[in-house]
């Protein structure tokens, strides 16, 4: 059991999107707990609701067409969903920060990066411009950007993708937040840069001690970084445990399928086809009845097609949403 203080506690979050073509239940009853200093990985395929969860925490869901219609998000015991916009504004970028997937488009092209990072600082701290500039340069240095004084006056288009992502990280950490949300921050980078950024994030986490919520579809990323992993599917969490447990003994058929489908050098014989999970992620407009994974699950029974399973704690700290979890 985790002894650290609970930082963020999401209970039964439901965020729906009301579009012309129908209602999309992007997040439909997600529970998640993040402790102080914990690195939690939220894993799932595209469309499973992981990014929407992150945006919901900061209440950045575009409305229309999206709306948080239920649940609670406790931050230090206070429900964020009940706070007004001004209060949220003070939390964003200061106590909880977020970095996004596309470094190419996530920075404003018409202002210098120095300007943008300083802005993040002066929005939350009462210091003057000169002091903010100093702190910005410190941050640039911290994230490993060489010649920070010169870079201060550069524009985003003058930098590479990896550097821009470092700038985003600098911006996000400039007020020493308690939680950093990384929404597929390395997905758009090429592999070597990805490794560098992950190293950077790991180093910063050790140094600054913030909690990180890593959102990704890439299991390799969480294998390196996360202490705890939550697996999401079709708007719900289907399994959650420590990283070790997830990799060693996955209990949910979906998790098992995901792990099986990772190409491994050693175990598989070369002329066997790569095991993939049959079927496709369900269309958000046509969610299957019962357990949402049932059309693709090799172990599905009649009960799975009729009823939705609840979350069970199989062993301490290991939660699974399944009627027939795999034996460990």
């Amino acid at each position: 059991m985790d002894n650290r203080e609970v930082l963020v506690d999401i209970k039964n979050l439901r965020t729906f999107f009301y579009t012309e073509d129908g209602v999309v239940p992007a997040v439909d009853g997600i529970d998640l707990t993040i402790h102080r200093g914990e690195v939690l990985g939220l894993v799932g395929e595209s469309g499973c609701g992981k990014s929407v969860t992150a945006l919901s925490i900061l209440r950045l869901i575009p409305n229309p067409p999206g709306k948080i219609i239920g649940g609670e998000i406790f931050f230090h015991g206070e429900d964020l969903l009940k706070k007004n916009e001004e209060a949220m504004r003070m939390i964003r970028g200061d106590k909880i920060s977020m970095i996004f997937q596309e470094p190419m488009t996530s920075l404003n092209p018409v202002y210098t990066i120095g300007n943008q990072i300083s802005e993040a600082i002066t929005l939350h701290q009462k210091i003057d411009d000169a002091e903010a500039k100093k702190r910005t340069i410190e941050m640039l240095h911290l994230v490993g950007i060489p010649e920070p004084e010169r870079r201060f006056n550069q524009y985003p288009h003058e930098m590479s993708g990896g550097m821009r992502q470092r700038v985003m990280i600098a911006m996000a950490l400039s007020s020493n937040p308690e939680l950093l949300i990384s929404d597929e921050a390395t997905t758009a980078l090429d592999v070597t840069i990805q490794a560098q950024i992950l190293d950077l994030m790991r180093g910063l986490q050790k140094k600054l001690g913030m909690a990180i919520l890593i959102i990704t579809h890439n299991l390799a990323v969480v294998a390196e970084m996360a202490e705890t992993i939550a697996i999401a599917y079709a708007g719900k969490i289907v399994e959650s445990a420590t990283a070790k447990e997830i990799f060693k003994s996955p209990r949910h058929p979906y998790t098992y399928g995901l792990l099986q489908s990772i190409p491994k050098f050693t175990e598989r014989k070369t002329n066997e086809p790569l095991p993939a999970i049959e079927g496709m992620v369900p269309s958000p407009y046509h969610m299957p009845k019962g357990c949402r994974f049932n059309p693709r699950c090799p172990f599905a029974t009649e009960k799975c097609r009729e009823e939705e399973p609840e979350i069970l704690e199989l062993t301490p700290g290991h939660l699974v949403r399944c009627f027939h979890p795999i034996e460990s």
Partner: protein
Amino acid sequence: MAEKAIEAKKKGQKKSSEDYTYVGMVFHRLTRHKLAMVGAFMLIFILLFVFAGPLIWRADPNAQIEGLGGMFNLPSRAHPMGTDDYGRDVLARMFFGGRISLFIGFISAISSTIVGAMVGLVAGYYGGWADNILMRFTDAMLSIPTFPLLIALASVLGKGVWQIILVIVFFGWMVDARLVRGLVLSLKEQEYVEAAHAIGASANRIMWRHLFPNTLAVLIVSTTIGIGGAIIYEASISFLGFGVQAPFASWGNMLQNAQQFIWNSPRLIIFPGLAIFLTVLGFNFFGDGLRDAIDPKLKL
């Protein structure tokens, strides 16, 4: 896909966006767009007015009533829109004038689009100096102020329907040329063009078979909105006396005629002008909706 649609229907659910064909989707979005539908109704009404009108209200647009008593009559049962300074029935003139104005508008818009598209295709596809020259020329033409050039050309070419069409086309192709060129430049880089090249397709074939169809959507929108513009140009030219000549009516020359009677017979100004205004408005509403329907994210 089809089974899902059938299943959905059985359960009484709405079809979702996955279940339509491309044209079907465009149509579906178009019918939901409020302004586009308002525009469509306006256009249908106007087309009916202009084409079916004379069948219901039979009067000769050129028949003049002799004597002072026939001029400037107020609307009455004999003449629902009154008579003009020559004693002609205004309503009938509105019908026939409308036909001419619409005809000119339509033909000019389509012709400019065709010319413009050809120029744009060639410039965009070949690039290099052909592109440079064509674009310089286009830019220069775009710098010449609209009006005076129209009038200049009209005064030089003489008066009449085909002359106006020529003038409007001469002046209107540039917009489409630029549009198509830009589109071709970005489409050119796409892989299916490389693939076509790789299997030995000729330049002509690539241009017509691969690039052009993708520009169609944009061109259709441009033409629709262009008809509105062309109608205004025709009206303006006729208004200044250069376009459609008496005794034929066009909405534009009806206004020209009526200008001097602003003090005593404002009705003669209101009707034709209103007709022009509503027609152009209809085309604009519809064209805009069409643009949104074809690709809601496309910024033209």
